[in-house]
């Protein structure tokens, strides 16, 4: 047999579900204290997530997409990025966005039905939340292309789900990143489900990472509940991209512990057993155990920190709740740089209807 091509896809895991290491720490983790900081961020994120869900349940927020279980993956994706890099989220990766300086109140405004949620002051070039699945992957490829053409040393990082990896836009991102050798990191967060459709129904591929082969990208599969593996995967891909080595597809294996969104009821389509099993592998247990064993963490510290997180989140919730609704003309005032003549009558009519002519 003559061979035209050969491939091998690596799987990364450092911190096992039982909280012990597989081997030495990778370059992405110079010391254990960075892990303490990241664990604190994970706790903040989980606090935020829980309070957002509660807010929705009391009618003070629209539909909300929880990130329960994804904390290591989300935070790990965002934390090694440089400020001038560009991040393109789907609708769930608040953990990565917080690393980029997006505020919790932004998240709440967005899901609360207010476009101002997308005004990211600290990340002015990052993409807004993206509802049309995986279109952000291809926009990020366009961003990466502009970095390359302008000879800027930045990287574009984009995230979609396992379901999102079926979307043609995802493949277009893979194809174009390969064709132009772009500084692009395509993160596929495989949480097992796309609403009610399980990973196995999305594709016949053994791994989602291997989809990168279709465009000649670097492919990697990692344990997405292992913060260390997530960091190392991102380090490799970011370095490769920044050094002109082209794009990557990283598949992060995790699990969606919550319903798809607050509008969903996962009991309709998946068994309790699966969810129970997933809870044993989620990212907090292992990292807490690891840090506790090292003497870097304890229950009292956690209790105090979680309390602090609660306060910080409450401040953000209040900031959200106290943001007045936009005036009606906001509909017109961000449509074009300057409102065309042809629309001025409609704007005036809208104002007049409010007695503000």
């Amino acid at each position, binding site marked *: 047999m003559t061979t035209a091509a050969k491939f091998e896809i690596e799987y990364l895991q450092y911190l096992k579900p039982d909280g012990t290491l597989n081997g030495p720490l990778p370059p992405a983790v110079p010391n254990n204290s960075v892990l303490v900081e990241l664990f604190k961020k994970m706790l903040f994120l989980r606090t935020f997530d829980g309070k957002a869900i509660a807010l929705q349940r009391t009618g003070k927020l*629209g*539909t909300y997409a929880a990130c329960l279980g994804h904390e290591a993956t989300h935070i790990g994706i965002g934390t090694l990025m440089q400020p001038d890099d560009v991040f393109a989220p789907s*609708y769930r990766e608040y953990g990565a966005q917080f690393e980029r300086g997006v505020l919790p109140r932004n998240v709440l405004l*967005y*899901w*609360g*039905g*207010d*476009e101002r949620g997308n005004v990211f002051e600290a990340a002015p070039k990052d993409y807004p*939340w993206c*509802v*049309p*699945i995986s279109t952000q992957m291809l926009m990020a490829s366009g961003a990466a292309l502009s970095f390359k053409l302008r000879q800027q040393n930045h990287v574009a990082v984009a995230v979609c789900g396992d*379901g*999102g990896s*079926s*979307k*043609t836009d995802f493949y277009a991102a893979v194809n174009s990143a390969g064709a132009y050798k772009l500084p692009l990191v395509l993160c596929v967060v495989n949480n097992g489900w*796309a*609403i*009610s*459709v399980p990973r196995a*129904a*999305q*594709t016949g591929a053994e791994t989602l990472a291997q989809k990168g082969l279709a465009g000649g990208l670097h492919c990697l599969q990692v344990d997405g509940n292992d913060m260390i593996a997530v960091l190392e995967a991102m380090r490799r891909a970011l370095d490769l991209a920044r050094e002109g080595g082209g794009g990557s597809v990283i598949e992060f294996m995790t699990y969606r512990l919550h319903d798809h969104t607050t*509008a*969903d009821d996962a009991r*309709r*389509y998946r068994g309790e057993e699966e969810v129970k099993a997933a809870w044993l592998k989620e990212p907090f247990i292992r990292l807490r155990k690891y840090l506790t064993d090292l003497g870097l963490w304890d229950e009292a510290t956690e209790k105090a920190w979680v309390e602090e997180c609660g306060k910080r989140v409450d401040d953000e919730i209040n900031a959200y709740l106290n943001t007045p*609704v*936009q005036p*009606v003309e*906001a*509909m*017109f005032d961000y*449509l074009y740089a300057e409102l065309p003549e*042809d*629309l001025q009558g*409609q704007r005036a009519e*809208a104002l007049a*209807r409010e007695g503000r002519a």
Partner: protein
Amino acid sequence: MSAQPITLIEAITQALAYELRTDERVVVLGEDVGVNGGVFRATAGLSAVFGPERILDTPLDETTIAGLTVGMASQGMLPVAEAQFDGFVYPMVDFIISHAARMRYRTRGRLTCPMVLRVPWGGGIRAPEHHSEANEAIFTNVPGLRVVMPSSPQRAYGMLLAAIRDPDPVIYMEPKRIYRQYKELVPDDGEALPLDVCYVLRDGSDITLVTWGAQVKETLEAADALAKEGISAEVIDVATLTPLDFPTIAESVKKTGRCVIVHEAPRTAGYGAEIAARIAHECLFDLLAPVERVTGYDTHIPLFRLEMKYLPSVDKIIAAAKRSLAYS
């Protein structure tokens, strides 16, 4: 026979079940239509009855859904595809326009494309971005399609049966805001309704109000309010946008001499323009007043904190009717 009155979305489920039962060529496909029964529950229970070979969950890609649907239809199946929300039909547009609408034409009748695309349509449900679009104009300028929109449980049932049985592609848009608004008795008798008539929902003599989809509700309410002031408004539910039953509209406008067209989509080049244009051609000398359009503004529908200010409302319809009636 459904003994109990049912909602519009239940009527859709009932129609799907009827056709699945009586014609083995029918399959349903889309994201989450299987075990989950669809995000709006339109396919609730169907997978349990008809199995995963008739009710297919698809990979998460609208291009895929459209392409598979056209491929199956051209091979003699009768696929009923679901776009999960209006905002996600755009990746389907190429297959609908380039293939579904042209298969019969291109092959001189050798291959055909008897498919239905179901699209939950429109705003007003406090949904996230891209879940509230009134984008029927994407399809109304495309020859070879039928674009329909039922606005009552009975019409939803009868028109969906007709759409599935129609030998050509039908875009079946569902006003999601009124999915559960009220119930009606909808006998499960397999009786299809025609796909080429406008419905006069209320007779009147002073002014004609023309609308479709979710706005039928506001328009009827406006007619009620006008009636209290002694103004008799005729209300027409267009129901089938293309090909259009213009004679029904013309007859009414010739009678009343006044017309307000109400729709949710942005005004400019919305489908209301076509109806107004036909009136300007066919009924010019019958008109006593300019043809009014009450529509969404020429902006994107805002996120939900503002969306009700974007949508046509009873107030806006009444005001337009009065503007029209002010001409004598």
